[in-house]
């Protein structure tokens, strides 16, 4: 009897693991917007990259509208690939908040001096924890945030392509 209980409980836990992994397979790796309506905690403070000024993260975002956040680092090669596309966003007057991920500030500044600065504001994330608040899993990553509902509405993992830029533009324009 005791053995049967052991057996059945083992079997049940195996089945649970099976179901979870099966569900895991169906989790889209594209991160479409329906799945990402989770709220972000905007109550933490952050430091700016250029002048070490400490501000509330909330102040960086448009409370009534959408904001674009880009997570990058000077050591990240794909970030260089997407850089011209970010400059395009700047030319379209779309504000992008940069999060400088686990980077050496000096290298980060060199990077921007060399390639141009597409960001309206840059905050530092020396230990990578700020990026986790945004649900980031790596660099580069671009997130579109709704300031009103404090939720992520769109997430781009990896370097932004031209199509992504068009999508971001249409998202922003749709709202305004």
């Amino acid at each position: 009897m005791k053995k049967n209980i052991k057996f059945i409980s083992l079997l049940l836990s195996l089945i649970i693991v099976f179901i979870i992994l099966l569900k895991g397979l169906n989790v889209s790796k594209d991160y479409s917007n329906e799945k990402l309506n989770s709220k972000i905690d905007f109550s933490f403070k952050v430091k700016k990259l250029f002048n070490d000024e400490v501000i509330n993260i909330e102040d960086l975002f448009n409370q009534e509208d959408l904001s674009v956040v880009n997570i990058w680092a000077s050591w990240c090669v794909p970030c260089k690939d997407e850089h011209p596309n970010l400059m395009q966003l700047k030319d379209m007057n779309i504000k992008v908040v940069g999060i400088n991920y686990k980077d050496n500030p000096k290298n980060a500044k060199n990077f921007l001096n060399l390639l141009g600065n597409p960001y309206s504001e840059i905050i530092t994330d020396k230990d990578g924890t700020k990026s986790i608040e945004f649900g980031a899993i790596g660099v580069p990553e671009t997130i579109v945030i709704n300031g009103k509902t404090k939720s992520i509405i769109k997430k781009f993992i990896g370097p932004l392509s031209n199509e992504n830029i068009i999508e971001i533009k249409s998202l922003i324009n749709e709202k305004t």
Partner: protein
Amino acid sequence: MSNYFGNYSLYIALIASIYLIIKSYIDTNINIKNLNKNLVLITSVQTVMIIISFISLVVAFIISDFSNETVFNNSHTLKPLFYKISGSWGNHEGSLLLWLLVLSVFLYIFLLKSSSQNIKYRLLTLLFQQIIISGFLIFILLTSNPFNTVFPIPSEGLGLNPILQDPALAIHPPILYFGYVGTSIIFSTSLAAVVAGNIGDSWAKHIKSWVLVSWIFLTIGILLGSIWAYYELGWGGFWFWDPVENVSLMPWFCLTALLHTVIVLEKRNLFKEWTIILSITTFSLSMSGTFLVRSGILNSIHTFANDPSRGIFILSFLFVLVIMSVTIFFFNQKKLTSTIKNSFIISKETAILVNNWFMMFFLSVVLVGTIYPIFLEVLNGSKISVGPPFYHNLLIPFLIPFLVFMSFGPSLKWIKDKLKKFEYNLLIIFLASILISYFILINTEKKFLLSVPLIILSFYLLLVTINDFFNKKSSLSQKISHFGFSLLITSILLNGLFSNEFNANMKVGEERKFNDKVIKLNSVNVRDIDNYKSLKANFEIKNQNSFIQLSPEVRIYQQPFTITSEADIKTTLFSDNFLVFNILKDDGYYNVRYQYKPVMIWIWISTILISIGGLLSLIKKNEKKY
């Protein structure tokens, strides 16, 4: 043409598999004296069919037969021959065919080598192994057939990922697969032995060589993978705790535990149940590895196929096998009670048990770090990233008791040993290791509380294992493996503590200072080679007493368009100088990353030593055991 051969021989192999499952099942239920000759014959036919199928694929790759979809997607006429061949298993379909090939070849070798064993046990092993083979055959034929055709026939292929064009990587997957698939034999034989009721010392002796073979291949496979990551990925490290790397490390922990447990079973007829549990777990972990890598459920640098139907199939198949083995284990458990002999706390048995606890702890940490993000995402949709700090914080503190334990555990005697009288030898060794560590740590700022005992203990263990070569308490194979292991730990610690890195954007002719060194970029030469464009840089690194020239390279491939960085690494016995550069944009600036990595080469050497120990134990099976 080769498409037809390859395809139809797989179908024949499947029919053979079904026949063998039915026939061996029937035969286990009747009393027969000898293994039916047909069974061996059909198994050899099946093996030959799978070999034909594999060769067909390799031929298709060599002659660039683009009517084959796999070849079209993964090859190109401009590829060097060596990489055309390695390309045949560098993709999803081909790698599964390789899995299948090794599965059937290993089964055939098992049948040839096991003629002295109990007939029911051999039949059951055949049965379980054929269940695995048929599962893989169905999987290949349904979802990943390497012989799908393309019409009209394209004139050129889509290319092999240039990052996979590396000799270490070309042989890395097959070696790793030998290790993974070897565990399938361990799995099948343990289940067979459970049902047949012949778990004991003679079975342990018989299965030990399979455990050793899988363990050696897995060790070398992991080594090659990390050599590839170090030289090709150009990230300047040898282990990144990437999920795909973890997936090969987990069965290794389990197999290492099994390797030790099986010796206890052989010598003392103890730990029967535990051996079976380890065998089942090892294979399940190898299969989960295949599942995690091939289903695309993980986000990793090794991006593989992303077809959910494949994932569902492997997952279901994995669970069928696991549930089957758990059921068999539970309902035959009464056959497994160990004949209780006297055991004492201070004995080799206990020492090996403690070794197993450590292995299981390391395994759980890696398992949680790899699987938990998937679970969490399913359960509440949150995403976390588990990186090196997680593993380091959880594993490194536990290295301290592990090192202490490993310094005396292996030299204990079977059954009962006394805590030895105070040995002056060991005291001298201990003082020596404190002294060495003092001189190593004195000139650095890295005086963390944790690193001091770690360095002292790793040197202590290193000296103890060297000292062990002069006594007769253990076999030579064990001495070499344990020495290799302590060397590995010491090298990893020194490497981790004293590596440093320089990172900057530089122009040709520019000079930068870094610690006591001066780094200068002399020139960058552009050339066209075979199937890529090469940018070769020339750097010099100077300090008071040394001068090194390094020439890293950037390769621009057109098919498909990829840029890879070939790091230049100058290796000496004491340190590696690692330099890699990247194109920023067309304004003459390059991103330069220079790393100084002490005792790098000893990490490879020690891992090779560990495997040599295993190899020696395999060859000298009759060597006198202590």
